[in-house]
Each structure stands twice: as structure tokens, then as C-alpha cells.
């Protein structure tokens, strides 16, 4: 048993990887789904064990292949990435049952390879989070990204391939920028191990030397392309709109979060917070929060509206990062979880709508509230979460962010955080109004709630978004602890 326990970090990656290979050989959709479901349910258990150990005993260091760091690749799990691992695997597990009906409806028969690609994506995301080696990050990043491009391209609309292609171009440029940045850091320090790099960078004579600055810039831009920071966000709306609903839900809840984790890891653990980028990040975050929300108001395709909403919400997270104080960073980290849960609900609910109606245009959703009460009820709860009503998870994140802004002496920033919530009231209010108060559209008349395998995840996520708004002992305390560690890591 302890042998197994010692290998848990590797298992977290190996399981989905081998499952992916297995599923690729399988022809039957049902067997593929069964394997995916089984793996998805095991992973959060492993992640929970790892997080627990990291909380109790301190960071876990796992040497891949027995080669000791810094020459060997090391998997290093502390509170921050334990939290993100938990997030990714838990979201995947809760959303997994949803896949069968949704994919069968959207992709037709013979889509077993979708599951294989999904498992690869999951492997990549978990790998980026768990590894402690900068280049290994790139490898896993590209594994997950390539899988993501393929997942998106499998949407049935012909624009899906187009969206995937654009994302491919942009994402590859982003990953390559990241590699360039890592290259500079390697030239400066001679190591690729993140922890070692941090120490050596701190020991450099002139920390703000141009090389470090350039490396930071490249890494920031590269990762920002992945996390859809404004104005590098333009690939996201198309990608999330045309991807299969389940893929869009999974990606919106995990892919950008992992990219944000990567940025946080580099900013705080490796590089140390830099003043120039703070201001820039702050400005871009605010721009994203407002501009994306305003664009969302005018969208008639609700999936695209939610995609722009995601961009705005990512703005909140980067805002918390830019504040760089404990409350702000706690808000950013806790919003990783809160947004994943809230946005997951929204996209899964929209997938159910697409299943029943065949459309996600706003006018087709008229009067859907009565026909699909549980689905739209969950959607409404999550909508309030996006707005940030007290009692929802979204409010907690904004509370911490506002606290952080006030701690940093920026009262206008706190005001702007509240003001941007008001913009989201407009577009969410629009959707709620149409779904609950209009007479049913012709498409909505025959709709009813989706089957339990789809309804279950939707309701669970919605319930979580309220629960996390009231009981924050788990999420906020872990986020707070992670923030402490990050801020204490570099002087």
C-alpha cells in the first residue's frame, strides 16, 4: 500500500495516459465511455490524497524515474497545485457522466476517439499542474493543447474546424513564446527545475537584468495567450461556441485555470513579482472585465455570450494576481474553483438546451424556464453566481478581491469590481428574462429536462456554486494558505 502511495503522483498522469491509449483501440462508444468514466472517478481520489498530504506534511517531491532533481524531472506538489489538481480532476469526474448522452446527440455514432483525445487532454492538464520542471510543462501543455484543438474541431458545425485552426495557430505561438522564455531562463540559470530556478534567479547579481525581463515578457505573453487574457482572448469565443457542449464545459472549467496556475507559479515562485507587469496586468484585467462583459450584452448566441463572460471572469482572476497581496491572491485562487463550478454549470446547462432544442440562440430559449425547470433553475443559480450575488461562490471571490483592492489602498479598484458586476447583471438578466418571462418559442414547446446522466452534473455544479458561497472553510482556507506560501516564497 505504501508503495502505491509513493507512486501516486506518477499514477495521476499515467492512468489517464494509458486509458487514452486503451480507448484509442476501442471501437465501441459505450466501452470508451465506461473506461473514461472509471478513470475520471479514480483521479479525484488520488488528487485528494495528494492535496491532503501536501497540506499536512508539506510539499511532495516525486522523482520521475528515480533521477534526482535538478537534472531529473521532478513532480512537485504543494498546496497551490494540489488545489488545482483537485479542481481539474473533480470537475472532470462530476462532468463525466454527462458525456454519453451529450456526445451521442452532438457527434452521432462512432465517436469513441473523442474520449481518447479527452483523456489525453486531461493528462496534459494534470501534467502541467503537477510537474516541477519548466520544459516538462511545455510538453504537457502541448499535449493538452493539441488534444484541445482536436476536441474543438470535432464540433459538428463547420466553423468548429475553423475555430480549432485559429486556436491552433494562436496556441502554438503562445506555447512557443513560453519555450523562448524558458530558454532565456535556462541560459541564465542552467537549470530547468522550477524550484532550483527560483533559487538561482534570486542569486543573480542584477535581478532586473534585461534577460530576466525578456524571459518574463515572453512567458507572460505566451501563457496569456493560453489563458485568454485581454487582448489575447480572441480565439476563445469561437472555440467555446463551436466545440461540442461537453468539451466546452470541461475546457471552460479547466484549461484556462491551468494556464492561470502556470502564470501564478512563474510569477510568484520562480520570478518574483515585478512592478511593471503588475500595472500592465491590472490594466489589461480591467479592460477584459469591462469590454468582454459589454460585448456579451450584444450576443444572441448564448454560448458565445458565456464565452465572453469567461473572458471577463478571467480578468477578475488576473486582477487578483496583479494586486499581489494576500487577500487579492486568495480571491484569485478561490475564483479558480468558484468560476470553474459556476461556468461549468452554465455550459453544461446550455449543452442540455442544445440537446433538447438543437439551438442556443437567445430567441429560441424564450419561455424555456417552465419547460426545463431544473436545467434553467441551475442556470439561473449559476447566473447569479456570475453576477456575484451574496450567497453564491462568485460573491466570495469578489469579496476577497475587493478586500485585496482596499488593502492595497485602491478604493477605485474595489468600486470597479462592483461596477463590472453590474454589467454582468445586464446580460445575465437578459437571458433570465427571456427564459422565464417570455411565452415559449416553437422550439421550446417540446423541450423537457435532460436525462439524469446529464441533469445530475448540472445540478451538482449549481449546488456547489451556492455551497461554496456559504461554506468557504475548504476553498478559501486552502486558497489563503496557497497565497501565503506564494507570497512568502520570494522576498
Amino acid at each position, binding site marked *: 500500500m505504501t508503495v502505491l502511495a509513493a507512486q501516486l503522483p506518477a499514477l495521476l498522469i499515467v492512468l489517464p495516459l494509458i486509458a487514452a491509449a486503451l480507448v484509442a483501440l476501442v471501437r465501441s462508444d459505450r466501452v470508451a465511455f465506461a473506461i473514461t468514466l472509471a478513470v475520471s472517478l479514480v483521479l479525484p481520489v488520488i488528487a485528494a490524497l495528494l492535496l491532503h498530504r501536501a497540506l499536512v506534511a508539506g510539499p511532495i517531491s516525486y522523482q520521475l524515474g528515480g533521477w534526482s532533481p535538478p537534472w531529473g524531472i521532478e513532480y512537485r506538489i504543494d498546496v497551490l497545485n494540489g488545489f488545482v489538481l483537485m479542481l481539474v480532476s473533480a470537475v472532470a469526474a462530476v462532468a463525466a457522466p454527462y458525456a454519453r448522452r451529450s456526445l451521442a446527440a452532438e457527434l452521432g455514432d462512432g465517436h469513441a476517439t473523442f474520449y481518447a483525445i479527452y483523456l489525453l487532454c486531461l493528462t496534459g492538464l494534470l501534467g502541467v499542474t503537477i510537474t516541477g520542471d519548466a520544459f516538462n510543462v511545455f510538453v504537457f501543455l502541448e499535449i493538452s493543447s493539441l488534444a484541445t484543438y482536436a476536441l474543438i474541431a470535432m464540433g459538428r458545425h463547420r466553423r468548429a474546424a475553423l475555430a480549432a485552426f485559429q486556436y491552433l495557430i494562436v496556441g502554438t505561438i503562445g506555447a512557443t513564446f513560453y519555450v523562448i522564455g524558458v530558454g532565456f531562463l535556462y541560459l541564465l540559470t542552467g537549470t530547468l527545475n522550477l524550484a532550483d530556478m527560483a533559487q538561482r534567479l534570486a542569486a543573480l547579481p542584477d535581478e532586473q537584468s534585461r534577460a530576466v525581463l525578456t524571459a518574463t515578457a515572453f512567458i507572460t505573453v505566451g501563457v496569456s495567450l493560453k489563458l485568454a487574457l485581454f487582448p489575447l482572448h480572441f480565439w476563445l469565443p469561437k472555440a467555446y461556441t463551436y466545440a461540442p457542449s461537453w468539451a466546452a464545459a470541461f475546457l471552460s472549467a479547466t484549461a484556462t485555470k491551468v494556464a492561470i496556475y502556470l502564470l501564478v507559479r512563474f510569477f510568484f515562485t520562480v520570478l518574483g513579482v515585478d512592478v511593471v507587469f503588475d500595472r500592465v496586468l491590472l490594466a489589461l484585467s480591467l479592460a477584459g472585465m469591462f469590454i468582454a462583459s459589454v460585448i456579451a450584452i450584444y450576443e444572441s448566441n448564448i454560448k458565445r455570450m458565456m464565452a465572453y463572460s469567461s473572458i471577463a471572469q478571467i480578468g477578475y482572476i488576473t486582477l487578483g494576481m496583479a494586486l499581489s497581496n494576500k487577500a487579492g491572491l486568495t480571491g484569485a485562487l478561490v475564483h479558480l474553483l468558484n468560476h470553474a463550478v459556476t461556468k461549468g454549470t452554465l455550459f453544461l446547462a446550455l449543452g442540455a438546451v442544445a440537446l433538447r432544442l438543437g439551438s442556443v440562440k437567445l430567441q429560441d430559449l424564450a419561455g424555456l424556464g417552465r419547460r426545463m425547470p431544473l436545467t434553467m433553475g441551475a442556470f439561473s443559480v449559476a447566473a447569479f453566481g456570475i453576477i456575484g*450575488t451574496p450567497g453564491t461562490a462568485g460573491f466570495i471571490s469578489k469579496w476577497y478581491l475587493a478586500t485585496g483592492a482596499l488593502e492595497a489602498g485602491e478604493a477605485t479598484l474595489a468600486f470597479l469590481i462592483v461596477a463590472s458586476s453590474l454589467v454582468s447583471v445586464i446580460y445575465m438578466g437578459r437571458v433570465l428574462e427571456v427564459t422565464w418571462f417570455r411565452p415559449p418559442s416553437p422550439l421550446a414547446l417540446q423541450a423537457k429536462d435532460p436525462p439524469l446522466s446529464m441533469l445530475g452534473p448540472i445540478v451538482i455544479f449549481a449546488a456547489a456554486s451556492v455551497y461554496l458561497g*456559504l461554506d468557504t472553510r475548504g476553498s478559501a482556507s486552502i486558497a489563503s494558505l496557497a497565497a501565503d506560501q506564494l507570497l512568502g516564497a520570494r522576498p
Partner: protein
Amino acid sequence: MTGPSPELLVLLALAIPFAGALAVAALGRWPNLREAATLVTGAALFAVVLTLSAAVFGGARPELAGLAVAPGLALAFEVEPLGMLFALVASGLWILNSIYSIGYMRAHDEPRQTTFYVCFALAIGSTIGIAFAQNLFALFLFYEALTLSTFPLVTHKQSPEAMRSGRLYLLLLLGTSMVLFLPAIAITWALSGTLDFTAGSLLAGKASPLVIGALLGLYVFGIGKAAVMPVHFWLPAAMVAPTPVSAFLHAVAVVKAGVFSILKVVVYVFGPDALRIGSAGEWLVWVACASLLLGSLIALRQDNLKARLAYSTVSQLAYVVVGAALATPAALTGAGLQIATHAAAKITLFFCAGAIYVAAHKTQVSELDGIGRRMPITMTAFFVGSLSIIGLPPLGGLWSKWMLGVGAMQADAGWVLGVLMVSSLLSAAYLLPIPVRAFFAPSPEPPSEPVRIQEAPLPCLLALTVTAILSILLFFQAEPIAALLRGVPGAG
């Protein structure tokens, strides 16, 4: 004698309505059991609140620490005199409202009755939450819960008109709370670092009079349930609901939650001194008086009985806001008294309106000539309620208006006294003709047969008689309430 601790009582008071909602939902298929669940819940709740009030009358301020949601945010509860009064009014009148509802809904054979009673229970639970909230966060949470739980009640008929009105209801109440109330809470926290209701004042010395005046505006208009003009439009629109809902909305819970919240904010967030010194709150006196008079004037012009009562409510609520704005000891006591007396009076009037609709199918004032002969008990109760609204003895309404008048004089605002008197005259003008004509005017239909007594169903009759007697009782028993209110900092 040692009974359950006050803290336990607070917990029970909060839990019983929600447990009752579950019970009602579970028993939906057996109407008699379901109705019994509602009544048992109401009785239990009132018993708990009554027991709690004994402690609070004695000076105790029980606290219940709930959930610590985030640093600085807690779902915590504390019972102080204002909240105690509100809880007493709400829980007491709720039982009567439930009895009335049962009679009304069955007489009309209304559909979706289980949803109705479940939402009722949820709404009263939210109301108790508002009454006992210890900080602005908890208040806001239950305030929104009240809006959401009463929405299905307002749109109960599900006709296009009901949906339209429901939309306005939700839009206006959610809109004002998100756009004005929530930012006001955020600013309060930014200025003072906490959201707890503090005896004395939360914002003491932390903001300039200008900021206080502006913040007050955000609160007053953000708390849309208080129906201060111009955010009052939801009130007449909500008339489309069945009468038990209107009674609940107007007398028991929703509007009372609004003015209660304003009173609570004025006393515990701003502190009465802040509003008196520097005249930061003076604009509010003007706005409230305008709302007072306009409400009465518009009421005069309404032929639909419920609409007339709705605008009357707008006007009567403004009395509480005037008292809060004047912020002198007597004014604050008067405002608290008004919550109680208006609740009893208005619920009587609404019960009568519903009874008239059930028994005689009449909704317009002009149709009510001579109806007193057919429904003597109802119209007598109506007469009693009208007197309380006008403010004449021996009705409780006299005391609330009296104290407000005294409070106006304390604030050197004698002109407010004039406004109050004009409003009383207007109230007489739009209310008294109804019972008078009901008894003394000849009925429009030719009397083909001797007039029989054709009263409303028994539960309805019972309810409205009790509330009418309550209005009279409040005249004689105002002193204990006033004593309770003197425990409110700044009141006297």
C-alpha cells in the same frame, strides 16, 4: 422558570418556517394535512417568537452565530427591539393570513395550491431572517430570498397580466437591490471595515455629511420593498396576485421588510445623530413627505379597491420613512409603532377586499354601495381598519401618527405635522366613503328579495375579525410596544 435558551429560540424561529416549507411540499397530495402543516408551522413560529419576545422585553439581546462565510462576512443573527417587533408582527399576522388563505384558496378552488403554501412558508422564513439579521450581509441575503420566494406568489394566476406584473416586480426589486443596495453595502464596508449593525452607529465619524446623504439615498432607493417613490411601481403591479398574497405583501412581510430595513439602516448603520446633525438626512424628509402625499392623492383616484389600498400602502409606508428621516426619539418610536399598527390595519382592509371579491365578486369601489347590508361583519372590520389608517381613536393608528407628530416637533420640523394632518384628511377621503356608502347608500340592484347576509367563508371572516380587533387592541396596548422600542438606541 428555565425554558429553552434564547439562542435556541432564535435558531428555532429561523428553522421552523423552512422545515414547514418542506413539510407542506411533502404533504401536497393531502390538502387537509397540507393546510394543517401550514397552520402548525405558523403556530409554532408565533409561539417561539412570543417566548423570545419575553426575553427581549426584559432587555436581553440574544445572538446566534451562524456561518462564518469569509473574513468579515457572517450569516449571524441578533435580536434587538426593532427586529423583535417586526418578527412579532410578521409571525402573528402570518397565522391569520394562513387561515385566511385557506378559506380564500378553497373557495376559489385555486390551482397550484401546494406551490403557494410552500412559497408562503419560505417567504415568512426569509422575513424572520431579515428581522433577526445581525449584519448587512445576512440582511441582504434574506432580503433577496424574500423577493425570490414571493415572486411565484405574485405570478400565481400565471395569466399574461400576472407574468407582466411579476416581471416588473422582479425587475424593480432585484434591480434596485443589485444596483443600489449592494453597492451601498460595499461602500459602507469600505468606509468602516465591518457590516455589523452597531448600537450607536457603524459609520460614526467615518464619512462626511455629503457622503452620508448620498449613501442614504442609495439605501433608501435600493431597498425597493419600502416603495419610496419612484421605486414604488412594483406595488400596484403586484395587485394582480390573489388577495391573500396582497395581504401578505402589504401588511405582513414584503413592504414591512422594506421599511424595517430602512429603519434598521438608519438606526444602526448611520445612527440617528448623523441624520440630525448636519442635515444629511433632510432631503429624505422631503422625499418621504412627497411620497406620503402623492400616494394618498393617487389613491383617491383609484376605483379598483385593491389599487386604492395599494397606493394607500405606499403612502402609509412613507410615514415610517419620515420617522426614520426625522431621527428624533419620538419619531423613531412612532416609525416602529407605525409598522405594527399599519400592518394590523392594512391586513384587515385587504382581507375585507378579498372577502368582498369571494362573496360578491366585486372589485371596484363604485360597485360597493349597499354591500354593507349583505356583509355587515366585513364592512365593519373595514371601517375599523380605515379608522386606524386615518389615525383616529380608539385605533392603534392614532399612536403611531401621534408619536410621529411629536417627533416632527422635536426636530423643529413642524411643517411635517401639517403634512401628516393633510394626509390623514386624504386617507379619510379615500377610505371612509367605502364603509359609509356600503351601509347607507342604496344598493345598485333593485331589492327583489329581502337582503340576506352573504358573508365570506368562515376562515376569512375569522381572520379579518381578529385583525380588526387587533387594531383596536393596539390602541390600548401601545405602551408595551413603545417601551420595547425605547430599547432602540436613539428612540424614546
